[in-house]
């Protein structure tokens, strides 16, 4: 993260901060100097919470704060606990949908109370994600579970699907709560605490549809323009994300294949036990060991079933999350690129204007001037004044964009490090968990067969035979 200090000489004049929006007083070392305005109102970057904008902060201190928090962050300082559970189905005249209970327990001072319980539906989570992404285009928001799963034609109201979704939503909110910047978002607070009516009205206060359209158009234009001189580190990031995306998708697919094969193995194994049991019915001496073996095989079947379930419920969701993460990362890098492209375009435009100003007076304007009845000198003066004004405006715009770009780059860089750490932790613990589960599976099966051997051994000793076991 660069330690660059933002140019504070930009003229103040307009009001609220564009990015970041509402940093709660929770963050220490906050430079609450209202006069120090870095970001003037930028209409190209809509800020939905502008009405709630409270604090303003310099980006430099913001960035320092981020880093500070990162080092401080550990389990002991966790002061907000969010749970998602208790899915319930709601039926209205128009639709049927599921809501989830979201419970928050916190000691943070900006919350009015220490416990909150609200009900939220998937749409609400989507809204929150959208808001966070808008407010922080180059920060990494943990992915939400997908809208619907096409493969396997899973019903929306299927129990397993609901549980999978609930678990993913729970993780989503917890990732937000752990994030130094997101967790202080006003939208997040409202999401956790507002009654459904309050939430609906708050949602309506977003940027108008048209302005959002304008944003999209500009984004497309920027994308088309492309980035000229992307810093190497972001190119490296892009390459990494491409490769990571491929690998994590492969691992996801391999794991799903393993689950499929295990299920098919289980189907066949389920027939073994009953066959041994059937055989035992024809036998006398052998009846007991055969029945015993049948029992052992059945027990192993149960263990295999549990093991498959565990894979499905624990490893696969995590892998899936990170497949979605890869897409999020790609989007974040794209948005950063767009900001840079925007900056580059404006730089070019300014240069062109300046060239215009320095160019010799044009014949055309003189001709026009004489038509209108002004002297060539007058026309030239007017022209120069106009250009000077335009250049000033563009200069201001460019500076704002430059700051925006720098902020975006720094935010991305530090969040990138944070994300990598989180990815490493999550995947490592998921794999360790899976390995442990597999060990436990084999240990349980081992015990089953060893008890069989034991029973045969005691049997043999009873009969005076020697057993090779």
């Amino acid at each position, binding site marked *: 993260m660069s330690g660059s200090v933002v140019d504070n000489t930009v003229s103040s004049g307009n009001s609220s901060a564009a990015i970041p929006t509402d940093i709660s007083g929770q963050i220490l070392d906050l430079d609450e100097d209202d006069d120090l305005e870095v970001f003037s109102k930028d209409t190209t970057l809509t800020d939905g919470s502008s009405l709630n904008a409270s604090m303003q902060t310099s980006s430099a201190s913001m960035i320092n704060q981020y880093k500070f928090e990162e080092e401080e962050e550990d389990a002991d300082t966790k002061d907000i606990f969010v749970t998602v559970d208790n899915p319930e189905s709601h039926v209205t005249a128009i639709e049927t949908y599921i809501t989830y209970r979201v419970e928050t327990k916190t000691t943070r001072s900006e919350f009015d109370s220490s416990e909150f319980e609200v009900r939220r539906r998937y749409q609400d989570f989507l809204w929150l994600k959208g808001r966070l992404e808008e407010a922080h285009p180059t920060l990494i928001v943990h992915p939400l579970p997908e809208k619907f799963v096409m493969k396997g034609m899973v019903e929306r109201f299927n129990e397993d699907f609901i549980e999978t979704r609930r678990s993913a939503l729970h993780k989503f909110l917890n990732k937000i709560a752990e994030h130094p910047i997101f967790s202080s978002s006003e939208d997040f607070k409202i999401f956790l605490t507002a009654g459904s009516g309050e939430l609906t009205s708050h949602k309506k206060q977003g940027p108008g549809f048209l302005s959002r359209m304008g944003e999209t158009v500009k984004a497309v234009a920027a994308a088309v323009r492309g980035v000229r001189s992307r810093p190497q580190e972001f190119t490296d990031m892009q390459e*990494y994300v491409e*490769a*990571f995306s491929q*690998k*994590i998708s*492969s*691992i996801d697919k*391999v794991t799903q*294949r*393993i689950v499929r*094969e*295990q299920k*098919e*193995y289980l*189907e*066949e*194994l389920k*027939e*073994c036990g009953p*066959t*041994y049991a*059937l*055989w035992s019915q*024809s*036998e*006398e*001496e*052998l009846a007991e*060991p*055969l029945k015993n*073996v049948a029992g*052992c095989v059945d027990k*192993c079947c149960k263990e295999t079933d549990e093991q498959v379930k565990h894979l499905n419920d624990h490893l696969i969701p995590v892998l899936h999350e990170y497949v979605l993460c890869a897409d999020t990362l790609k989007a974040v890098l794209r948005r950063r690129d767009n900001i840079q492209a925007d900056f580059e375009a404006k730089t070019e435009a300014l240069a062109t204007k300046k060239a215009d100003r320095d160019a010799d007076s044009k014949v055309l304007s003189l001709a026009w001037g004489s038509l209108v009845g002004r002297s060539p000198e007058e026309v030239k003066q007017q022209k120069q004044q106009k250009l000077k004004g335009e250049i000033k405006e563009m200069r201001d715009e460019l500076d704002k964009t430059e700051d925006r770009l720098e902020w975006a780059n720094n935010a991305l860089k530090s969040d990138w490090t944070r994300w990598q750490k989180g990815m*490493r932790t999550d*995947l*490592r613990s998921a*794999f*360790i968990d899976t*390995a*442990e589960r*597999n*060990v436990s*599976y*084999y*240990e349980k*099966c*081992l015990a089953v*067969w*060893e008890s*069989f*051997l034991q029973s*045969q051994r005691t049997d043999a000793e009873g009969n005076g*035979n*020697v*057993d*090779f*076991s």
Partner: protein
Amino acid sequence: MSRTREVTLCSLYSLPVVFVGIKPPELKKTISPFALNFQLGNFADICIEYCDSVDQNLQMVEKGTSLLKKMEISVAEAEKRTGKNAVNMQETYTVYLIETRPVDAASEGTNPVPDSLWRRYSEFEQLRNYLLVTYPFLVVPPLPEKRAEFVWHKLSADNMDPDFVERRRVGLENFLLRVASHPDLSTDKIFYSFLTEENGWKETVFETGFQAKADSRLKALNATFRVKNPDKRFAEMKHYGDELQSVISQLLRVRARAADRLYGVYKVHGNYGRVFSEWSAIEKEMGDGLQSAGHHMDAYAASVDDILEEEEHYADQLKEYLFYADALRAVCRKHELTQYELEMAAQDLTSKKQQREELATGTIRTFSLKGMTSKLFGQETPEQREAKLKMLETQIEEGEELVKERNGECEEFVKSAWVDIERFKEQKDHDLREALISYAIMQISMCKKGIQVWNNAKECFSKM
């Protein structure tokens, strides 16, 4: 210790084990060579247990067959040969090396070169067919399967496949040892010359005329007839044989399918190895942990080959008893046949006696063509009647002889067959129990391997 068994054990567990000076376990208890399995890691205990059991078995050698007391038998090798067959076409076939070695020489520490000869599978078949017709009251040990059945996808159904040939070699040795340990079969001269006479055996066996008997036996076995008074025990045994055949077939089928699936599960984990390796290339801190975890995934995927090869041995043990069930049914069928023939002879005698009575008293109680014709064409002359009566008397005498004979045969058959069936039952109970135990040991071994691999992987993941 026969080399075969040594090799089997070594190949199973890659243990450099050599048993020197230990007599082959007496096979009256009929331990099939592949029932001797060892738990990985409990080797010391097993050694002691094994030696103990050998001691016990050594005591039993005294009760063993005289053949096995004299010689060690093994099927040591298999080789491919090409030659011209009966229709003068080139064919490739496999021959097996039968080695015999006098027992005393081995125990004295000297190791003379064994006598040996080559035989192909068809010759084994001839030997068995001979034994079947010569000892119809015995449950004759079966040969390993002619064609690979109950295969799962990776296993080849090709007779020339080296794994199939190897399993067949072991099965053929097992067959020979089973015959050699049977109290009656082991004394057979043809069997002895099969083991010892390379040339001329074929002619010798053909001279016994067994081929014709074999054909008629087959026909008789497949004929349908109703027996009025079969021995209950044999009827039950036949029913048991049917059930055994059915349930073992089912078990083999299910097992093969499960093996197929298990193979799939393990092999897919190999993909983890590949992807982890590729992924580790783009990671800095996670790279090493991922890379080494990937190696363990590869090892896991590879481990299934050995696991399933071991399971094939278990399947072979089951198959032996699948085919044994057939032999058991054949004995029961033979009993039915002898019983049927006795009943037919008795029936015939009864009807002849009745005819005599009718002729003597002049009453016609039974319908006969003679009766009809005599009604139509007039009564016979007293001379004719006399002649007829005389003939009947002779026939009745002969019939009574026949019935006595057949009765004797029947009783004899029932007696000897039941003795062998009891022997077979004991052997079967013992062997199959051993097989189940060895199956459990295999499962334990598989679980231990799994635990090891995943513990290693977990360690690598922790370093991620």
